[in-house]
């Protein structure tokens, strides 16, 4: 079963210098070992390779290895660099972008043409694509000539280059895609570093090196280094850890926190805890009593012993948040944290005139850490004088209830794909943004005003100041109960090098090499 519904926000990308960032820091040129197979076990299952069918982590992380887009995240994930587009020019009014295509080939040997790009981007913005909203500001995608594509916008839209780096903007081979759209989801034809050789649904994907890939490695030869990837779907975390130790797997993704501490002691294994754009928090529905009262929401925050949660649930992995949103570029460290203060919580509950209305703390079935968090919070909040029930719902149902506002509090999380504060800040805090302040119905005119100002500003210092203010206000309004800035924890054998988790959560395998 999938974990809870996943939200990826889009942000205006940092561009500028990003285009020229190199990958040189990956490995020393001389040492890199080519060939070999990487066996990777992960808890999510790829469902489709069709980039226009909206997807879950299981699919996205896999698509990232296979498909390529005009721009791509750089090695750090913090910036952008050219992908299939060798370069681009932006008109003065910022309404017209002209991309020059690289001389690249699809995995089946066909050249990547202007036609393919136009087709792909039009499909990505089509009527049935989930991420179409990101392409909504686009007026037209047209071929300028054999090697140039022109995108014209309805209005200025700075996040465009960032959007074009999304998996949803992947460039597919038009002929294959049109010939068999359903089949494409099983056996895609893209221009990424790997191609799908065998896709055993529900169990594994075998990817092999795409010999036609355009990028060059540190040794001056074409990437990728690996010949083959076996990406296995292993939902049970104990089994993943056991498999890593027994040598069945080279890499395991999403190591459970308690076992991560154990793996740290294993000399054959490298444990990587990489901060990513993720915040675990309790959604609060401001439209439902008693959460409509700020005092109550703050009481929930004061009564939450985040230190204890960090220690017992996350085993020390992560960082206690001082924000209502993940730690993206304009994050302010100076916003004061709400401390653990049960007495203060009691006072607030009393001050709110709490009438005993119970709070249903919802979680999705199968969310083990969520269950633990809910158990801890229930006791803490009850200590503060609130009535709390834990209610579990199957994830589809829970999400349905959340989007309809039929919940009170929901243990969940949010991540951002792109390194820009704006989009998440708006989506989470502006009740008019289309998701009702991300299903909280949080409505503070001052915040909405500040966000509007920040969007109009071109001065990054000013924006930083405005976002910090929003962060401060929303956080102290008791927007939610933030719990932890959670890192991505992965582990691999020491003979694996070049492994890197980028800040949006996924990993690049084109730079990975194995030296068993």
């Amino acid at each position, binding site marked *: *079963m999938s974990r809870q519904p996943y939200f990826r926000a889009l942000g205006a990308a940092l561009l500028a210098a990003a285009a020229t960032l190199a990958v040189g820091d990956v490995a020393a040129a001389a040492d890199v070992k080519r060939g070999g197979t990487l066996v990777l076990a992960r808890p999510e299952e790829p469902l489709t390779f069709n980039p226009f069918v909206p997807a879950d982590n299981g699919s996205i992380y896999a698509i990232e290895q296979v498909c390529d887009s005009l721009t791509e995240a750089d090695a750090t994930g913090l910036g952008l660099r050219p992908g299939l587009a060798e370069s681009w020019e932006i008109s003065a009014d910022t309404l017209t972008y002209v991309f020059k295509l690289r001389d690249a080939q699809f995995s089946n040997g066909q050249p990547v043409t202007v036609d393919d790009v136009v087709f792909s981007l039009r499909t990505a913005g089509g009527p049935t694509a989930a991420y179409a909203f990101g392409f909504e500001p686009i007026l037209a995608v047209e071929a300028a000539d054999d090697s140039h594509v022109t995108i014209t916008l309805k209005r200025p839209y700075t996040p465009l280059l960032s959007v074009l780096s999304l998996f949803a903007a992947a460039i597919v081979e038009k002929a294959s895609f049109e010939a068999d759209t359903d089949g494409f989801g099983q056996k895609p034809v893209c221009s990424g570093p790997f191609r799908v050789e065998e896709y055993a649904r529900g169990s594994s994907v075998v990817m092999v090196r795409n010999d036609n890939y355009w990028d060059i490695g540190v040794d001056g030869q074409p990437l990728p280094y690996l010949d083959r990837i076996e990406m296995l779907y292993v939902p049970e*975390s*104990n089994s993943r*850890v056991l498999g890593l130790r027994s040598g069945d797997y080279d890499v395991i993704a999403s190591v*459970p926190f*308690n*076992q991560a*501490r*154990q793996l740290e002691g294993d000399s054959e294994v490298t444990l990587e805890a990489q901060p990513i754009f993720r915040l675990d928090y309790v959604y609060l529905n401001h439209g439902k009593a008693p959460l409509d009262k700020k005092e109550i929401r703050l009481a929930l925050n004061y009564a939450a*012993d985040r230190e*204890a*949660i960090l*220690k*017992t*649930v996350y085993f020390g992995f992560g960082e206690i948040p001082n924000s209502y949103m993940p730690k993206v570029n304009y994050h302010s460290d100076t916003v004061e944290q709400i401390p653990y203060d049960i007495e203060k919580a009691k006072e607030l509950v009393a001050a709110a005139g709490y009438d005993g209305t119970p709070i249903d703390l919802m979680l*999705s*079935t*199968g*969310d*083990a850490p969520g*269950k*633990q968090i*809910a*158990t*801890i919070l*229930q*006791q803490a909040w009850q200590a503060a004088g609130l009535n709390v029930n*834990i*209610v*579990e*719902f*199957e994830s*589809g*149902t829970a999400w349905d209830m959340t989007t309809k506002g039929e919940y009170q509090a929901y243990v969940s999380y949010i991540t951002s794909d792109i390194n820009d504060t704006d989009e998440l800040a708006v989506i989470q805090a502006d009740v008019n943004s289309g998701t009702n302040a991300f299903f909280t119905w949080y409505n503070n005119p001052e915040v909405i005003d500040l966000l509007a100002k920040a969007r109009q500003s071109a001065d990054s210092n000013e924006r930083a100041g405005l976002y910090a203010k929003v962060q401060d206000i929303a956080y102290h309004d008791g927007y939610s109960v933030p719990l932890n800035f959670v890192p991505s924890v992965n582990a691999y054998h020491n003979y694996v090098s070049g492994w890197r988790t980028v800040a949006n959560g996924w990993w690049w395998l084109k730079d990975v090499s194995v030296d068993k």
Partner: protein
Amino acid sequence: MTAIAIRDELARWPASLKIGATFFLLIVVTGLFAPWLTPYDPYTQDLAGFLQPPSWRHPFGTDHVGRDVLTRVLHGIRIDLQIGFITTYVPMTYGLLLGALSGYLGGWFDTLMMRLLDVAVAFPFLVLIIVIIAILGPGVHTIYIAVFLLAWTMYARLARAEMLVERGKDYVLAARTLGYPTSRVVFRHAMPNVINSSIVFSMADFVLNILLVSSLSFLGLGVPPPLPEWGAMVAEGRDFIFDAWWISTLPGLAIVVTGASLSLIGDGLAHRLGQRQRSFL
């Protein structure tokens, strides 16, 4: 029943029944007195003292939020016996009724019941339980409803098969010639002689049902926290099985012990009721 009658009855019990019943009684009594047996509360967390290995202070250790595992196991007796009891004996009651009637009456009623039974048997339990959980949310009641819909089939089958034999027996025919109405013939006369195999099977079913809750908890479909239900405890503790084996293992042991005592009772009952069939089916 007089004391002598009880003594005589006990004297006829086979050893397995005595041992099983003693254990089971012990478990029940322990469950009744659970709140006074340990100084801890099953729900109170001690986040500072989490994942403590077994010690004198915490003979079964503490769990991932610092609760005393022994206390939770002891309190779990009440919950699990209740779950086992309800999920076993409620479906058994109407399963027996339907099966016995079906076997006795035959004809269209039997045909209808058998087709209904086929549907219940062939319908994937997982779909049903997930669907009900999706509608009602997980919890003890949800499990009850799902189990009620399907678990009667085994009893209905057993009762029907036995009734097909019983209805031809002379004492049933005799009851009919005495002019007793069908309901009396079936329920007063035949029924008590039909239920033996079901009672024996129910002992294994009891264990199976507790295990079912545990498996459902594994899938996140069991009882909601923080209820100290054994299956849920076993499932919750599985993430810690390598560094804190006691969280999962000791509640599991409770299931095994309860299962063993019930299985012995079933065994002994089979003997006592003159039935060779064992408690497993």
